[in-house]
């Protein structure tokens, strides 16, 4: 699948401070193609996460449009967009992204059951094994370290097997071995035809990339 952004920008109004108008992302156009892994790098605060959220259908751009193939994401109603995202787009967000009342395994199979699908327990266990967290399948998220939680989040996205994978700093909490496991998994997903975008402010991921984009002050250079 092809993920395409046409002149998307995002402005914010700050409640305090001298300048109350803030452009997180200036008008950006980009094309992410199926079968390719794209790395988006840049300093903290350059607008990478805001851009990723807009591409994921989670944050409506102030201006511009986002298409997944021919589907204009933000032209859809919330109900349709949510289901579309659930089926087509997998996001690995920054920070903790666990539902605290579910076990690790339940968290990983969660996307598959939201719309009544069969739980992909076997796939989940395979990814958990690959990422070294199979022994934590029945643990609660509160018992996990930051790195384990990050691997759980990645396993969840890979288990859902979406057409588009958008990962925000996925290796931030990981050691070198696990970083390699995760990036290899993303690389393999791209080779299987998925559209993969990895946002990172480190250079580790660039080795695995088909395309590297650099973001600065809300614009892609």
């Amino acid at each position, binding site marked *: 699948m092809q993920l395409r952004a046409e002149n998307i920008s995002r402005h914010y109004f700050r409640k305090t401070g001298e300048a109350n108008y803030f452009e997180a992302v200036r008008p950006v156009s980009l094309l992410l193609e199926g079968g390719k892994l794209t790395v988006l790098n840049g300093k903290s605060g350059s607008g990478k*996460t*805001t851009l*990723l*959220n807009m591409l*994921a259908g*989670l*944050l409506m751009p102030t201006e511009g449009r986002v298409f997944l193939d021919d589907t204009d994401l933000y032209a859809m109603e*919330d*109900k349709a*967009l*949510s*289901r579309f*995202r*659930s*089926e087509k787009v997998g*996001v690995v*967000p*920054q*920070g*903790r*992204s*666990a*539902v*605290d*009342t*579910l076990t690790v395994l*339940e968290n990983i*199979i*969660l*996307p598959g*059951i*939201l*719309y*009544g699908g069969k*739980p992909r327990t076997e796939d989940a266990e395979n990814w958990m094994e690959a990422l070294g967290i199979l022994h934590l399948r029945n643990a*609660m998220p509160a018992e996990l370290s930051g790195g384990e939680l990050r691997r759980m989040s990645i396993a*969840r996205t890979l288990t859902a097997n979406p057409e588009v994978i958008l990962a*925000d700093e996925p290796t931030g909490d990981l050691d070198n071995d696990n970083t390699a496991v995760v990036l290899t998994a993303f690389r393999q997903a791209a080779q299987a035809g998925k559209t993969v975008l990895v946002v990172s402010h480190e250079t580790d991921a660039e080795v695995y990339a088909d395309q590297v984009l650099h973001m600065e002050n809300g614009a892609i250079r």
Partner: protein
Amino acid sequence: MRRFLLVTRNLVRKPGRTAALVLLTAFLAMSVFGGTIVVSSLRKGLESMENRLGADIIVVPAEAESKVSLKNLLLQGTIGTFYMDASAVEKVRETEGVEKASAQIFLSSMKADCCSVKVQIIGFDPENDFVVRPWIAESLNRPLDDMEVVVGCRVETKVGNDFRIYDRNCRVAAKLASTGTGLDTAVYCNMNTIHVLLQAAEEKGITHRIDSGNDAEVVSAVYVKVLPGADVGLVNNRLNGGIRKATSIRTAGMMTEVADSLSGVSNTIAILIGAVWLLALIILFIAFAMMVNERRRELAVYRLLGMSRRMMSGMIMRETALCSLAGAACGTVLGAVLVFPFTTMIETSLRLPYLTPAGGTIALYAFVAAAVTVAAGCIAGFRTAFRLSRVDPGTTLREGA
């Protein structure tokens, strides 16, 4: 794991939060159900008292008012005796505007070996009675024989047993339905029986004579029904002026007094129910508002994974409804446990007629209390669901909120 399981997992695995919500809603249900039962029992008690009385005017000896509380004695059946010359009955009947007049004679039994229990015994005239007979007819479909009694529902004896009054045995012919008043502890008999019992009391030194040595027939009260269209006030004035050593009282005044007390109590309870409901609603709002912040991250994850706003609101509403239902069930049971075993205590402390509604009505009140509780929970939950469904998942997860 299916979607509904997300709701139950969340409730079961956050026991503290769930328990707090269930407790809050239980408190609400308990106060609504318990309060409603008390208010409706009071109203039913008054209704029963009105139905029981059936007279427009009551004529009693002039000194009766100074001896006992007439309101309590005539309406509530508290124990007390007074007598006047029986000739007053004919004089009442001859008064212009009177349709029916029926005499009653009161006697108190003693808490002694000669009597089964201390009760108020009321002798009535079956030929002219329009007050007691209709009530007794609900439990006994034949006239009362001599030395037979009909007892109130709270007199501890059984139909067919002998009931001893001043060493005379009377057979219990029937037990009356509950009125919710003190009349439930009274014993009823015909005039022949009451005269035998008066004589027996006399033998024990309890006199019913108006003046010593006077053997004249006595009565305690004459119940009066005025002719249709007659002015009750005017008839009452005629009776007051026409019968010596007797006083005539309009029952409407007594009933109004009871109704006023009852209205005061039931209004206070109704206001309390409203205040508790409002308070619980405010507390629920605060509890849910606190939950918004606690659950912001968790719900951002659901949004991130593709849950729509509608689905998320539905999930929160299901959680709220389950907690409220559990709370409503616990609260209703608790309300019942607090109210029903203490019916007598409530009646005694309020000093008002109190008649618990029928099972069907209680079930209806329980349903309404549960519905009101679930509604309050859902109103509070809806606001939370709306706010949480507007959470921006990307920013929330990034902020570490």
